[in-house]
């Protein structure tokens, strides 16, 4: 345990029955966790469901909590697993849909509103350029970037959260940064041109 991790101490207090300690933890992490889930799932309804799922899991298993890592690592590892389950469910759903083209219309009506591809596309279009570029990243690269941005954790901790070797995590993050830069470069050049034109 990192002795400087005050959040792990708060979690220990909550494990021992201090509800106020949980309130402090929640206030600190609710924003980063929600944004991680929102940008990762690219769907507000799914993010809300996952958000509840993560905290519910933490609450239900608090009695077994032992600070073996930073609290942020612990919390976002839960979030990672919940997100993985969500993507698996989503993938299974998408696999079923093409096999029944004849019934596509009927099946589409059975798909939850927040999982419909057109709703995901709408969500992406509503974002700013950088958020749209993040949403367009491959899932693993997107997650590595979001974990870095929302938690400030280093590459080793990101690797621990995502259950991959450090080099894999580093590689994912590297590709994410490169793609984002490439996505934003035309807009930055356009902005620079506009500034020169009106200067």
């Amino acid at each position: 345990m990192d002795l400087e991790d005050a959040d792990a101490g708060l979690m220990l207090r909550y494990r021992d029955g201090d509800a106020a300690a949980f309130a402090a933890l929640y206030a600190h992490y609710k924003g980063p966790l929600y944004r991680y889930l929102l940008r990762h799932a690219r769907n507000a309804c799914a993010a809300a469901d996952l958000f509840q799922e993560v905290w519910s899991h933490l609450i239900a298993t608090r009695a077994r909590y032992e600070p073996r890592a930073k609290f942020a690592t612990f919390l976002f590892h839960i979030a990672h697993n919940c997100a993985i389950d969500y993507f698996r469910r989503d993938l299974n759903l998408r696999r079923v849909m093409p096999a029944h083209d004849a019934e596509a219309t009927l099946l589409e009506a059975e798909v939850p509103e927040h999982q419909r591809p057109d709703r995901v596309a709408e969500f992406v279009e509503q974002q700013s350029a950088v958020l749209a570029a993040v949403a367009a990243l491959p899932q693993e690269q997107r997650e590595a970037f979001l974990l870095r941005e929302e938690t400030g954790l280093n590459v080793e901790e990101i690797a621990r959260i995502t259950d991959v070797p450090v080099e894999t995590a580093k590689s994912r993050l590297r590709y994410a940064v490169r793609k984002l830069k490439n996505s934003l470069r035309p807009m930055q050049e356009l902005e620079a041109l506009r500034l020169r034109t009106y200067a």
Partner: protein
Amino acid sequence: MADELDDYLRGGSEISHQYKRDSAPAPPIELDRLVLKAAGSLQARTPFKPHSLAPLAFAASVLLSLALVLAMVFGPQVKKPDDKPQVVRVRIFKSEQPRATPASARERNPALWLHDIDALRRAGRGSEADAEMRRFRSAYPDYIIPISE
């Protein structure tokens, strides 16, 4: 490529700046309420609800039950009719013995006795008739002697 990642990890990159500028949503308030309630952190701030009276109602029930038990144990007793046969003590008074009367009086009819006394007097045996009359009077003091014709 390595420099590109290192620059990013050092912080202050343009990507990070733009991301933090554009991505600042917070979870809806309803989610806050649900999570904090699940964690037990909203207990102190939960508005008063009828189910808050549950502990008070429970305490009142316990007190009422205790009072009933105490009343049954220490309250005024009402005897129940039991199944055992009861023993009734009864004082038996014997009837009073009849008053003692002379054997002659018990044996003789007053009218016949007076007739005999009258016969003695008519026979000239006056002293015997008087003695017999005294015995008659002692035996029948209240007997009304008819007037001789």
